[in-house]
């Protein structure tokens, strides 16, 4: 299924799908779509289709995993076998274990874990269809799911990837750009406080490009934050209005 690399990823300032360098792909977020989970969210970003669910805070079992003074946050990022071109064998691999860790560390800063000693909060992120940027889109969905579950938060977390293609710094890499581009930098941000809670990078950035990339990331995060708030409003406003 390996496709050939296109000659250029950027033609006349337009990307393969017609976007400008600083443009997000089409974004859609929906809160609260699962019945059993305490909180849930669904996100589509370009061709990414991702489901996030939250259980807890609830008592941690088995007990020896409890922390006496704080709740434990557990995250599991997982790809469906059918989410990528070549079927992925079910179960965790090294990539998904690392991603689960950085996602957890991206969400921890906004949670008041000290409010729930001995408890656990579980965050599950399922990639149903993958098109680059799944970890950051997963964070975006997970923080909506946490809010939907009623878990108190300092701020939301919004994630986006920035990168470099054909020498230009661009926002929100799609699959082809991720595959053939020169750099990829996933970023997660607390949108109100402007704090960076996830930062990874591979490829080649000059210091100047690094700064540009951060600028773009902050710009993208603002739009994502709006979509997050919209999704929560969409779910809760009707019931709030009913309540009047």
């Amino acid at each position, binding site marked *: *299924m390996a496709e050939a690399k296109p000659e250029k990823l950027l033609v006349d300032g337009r990307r393969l799908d017609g976007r400008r360098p600083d443009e997000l792909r089409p974004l859609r977020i929906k809160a609260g779509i*699962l*019945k*059993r*989970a305490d909180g*849930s969210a669904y996100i589509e970003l370009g*061709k990414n*289709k991702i*489901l*996030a*669910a939250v*259980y807890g805070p*609830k008592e941690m079992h088995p007990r020896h995993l409890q922390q006496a003074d704080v709740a434990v946050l557990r995250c*599991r990022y*997982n790809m*469906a*076998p*059918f*989410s*990528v*071109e*070549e*079927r992925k064998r*079910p*179960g*965790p691999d090294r990539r998904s274990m690392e991603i689960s860790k950085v996602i957890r560390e991206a969400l921890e800063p906004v949670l008041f874990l000290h409010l729930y000693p001995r408890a656990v909060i*579980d965050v*599950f992120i*399922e990639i*149903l*269809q*993958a098109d680059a940027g799944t970890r950051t889109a997963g964070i975006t969905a997970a923080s909506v799911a946490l809010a939907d579950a009623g878990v108190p938060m300092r701020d939301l977390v919004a994630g986006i990837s920035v990168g470099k293609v054909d020498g230009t710094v661009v926002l929100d890499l799609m699959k082809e750009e991720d595959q053939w581009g020169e750099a990829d930098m996933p970023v997660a941000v607390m949108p109100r406080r402007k704090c960076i809670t996830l930062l990874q990078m591979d490829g080649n950035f000059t210091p100047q490009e690094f700064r540009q990339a951060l600028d773009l990331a902050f710009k993208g995060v603002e739009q994502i934050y709006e979509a997050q708030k919209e999704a929560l409003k969409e779910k809760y406003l009707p019931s709030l209005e009913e309540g009047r």
Partner: protein
Amino acid sequence: MKELIASVKKEYLVDLAMQGKRVDGRALDQYREVSIERGVIGTAQGSALVKLGNTQVMVGVKLEKGEPFPDTPTSGILVVNAELLPLASPTFEPGPPNENAIELARVVDRTIRESQMIDLEKLCIKEGEEVWAVFIDIYVLDHDGNLIDASVLASVAALYDVKPPAVEGWTLPEFPLRAKPVAVTVVKLNGVMMVDAGLEEENTADVRLTISTLENGNICAMQKGGSGFFQREELEKAYELARKCGEELRKKL
């Protein structure tokens, strides 16, 4: 797959059942609202999202070239895998498939395989060397009861959603399908039989029987589950429910 539910709730469900009633007002032989959405996953060759009430099951079908089994050198390969995702229920835990996930996958596998709905002989590319492998991945997203029926429905719908020209190396005119098996699971509450149990009904029942039928009413697979038992005549009744409800479900495929 059993969850603890309050005994007072159980008693209430049993009382209702004794009067031929159910907690959500359905008849004993009535399914919840059935929704089948096809083509939901672009990276799969075929896919479907099935909802039975709040239960949600997604299935993706992938076609890949592989080696045939030595004892069936001219036959394609069918692999069914089920994941009880931890996001679907507080009782599902991460990790390799447990006995419930394995049973679910194997009952779906038997239903598909024994119905001969896929003409596996046509999926041979080169005898003894290369055949098409059909991977059916069942992804349980929200568990509100009756996963078997939802999974069979989603698997059959996803198979019928397969658009073969999209697969590299594919030469057949179409994906070779020839039947529409449907599974109907009957549970027994204090002797009362009902179909499409919701989660609480499922957890109150002590036994279930899944009967997969074909268009002509023949049976291609069965599976008893749970620590209870059936009387001979209850099996007759279960078959009647399976035939009747199966016909209804098949119309939606």
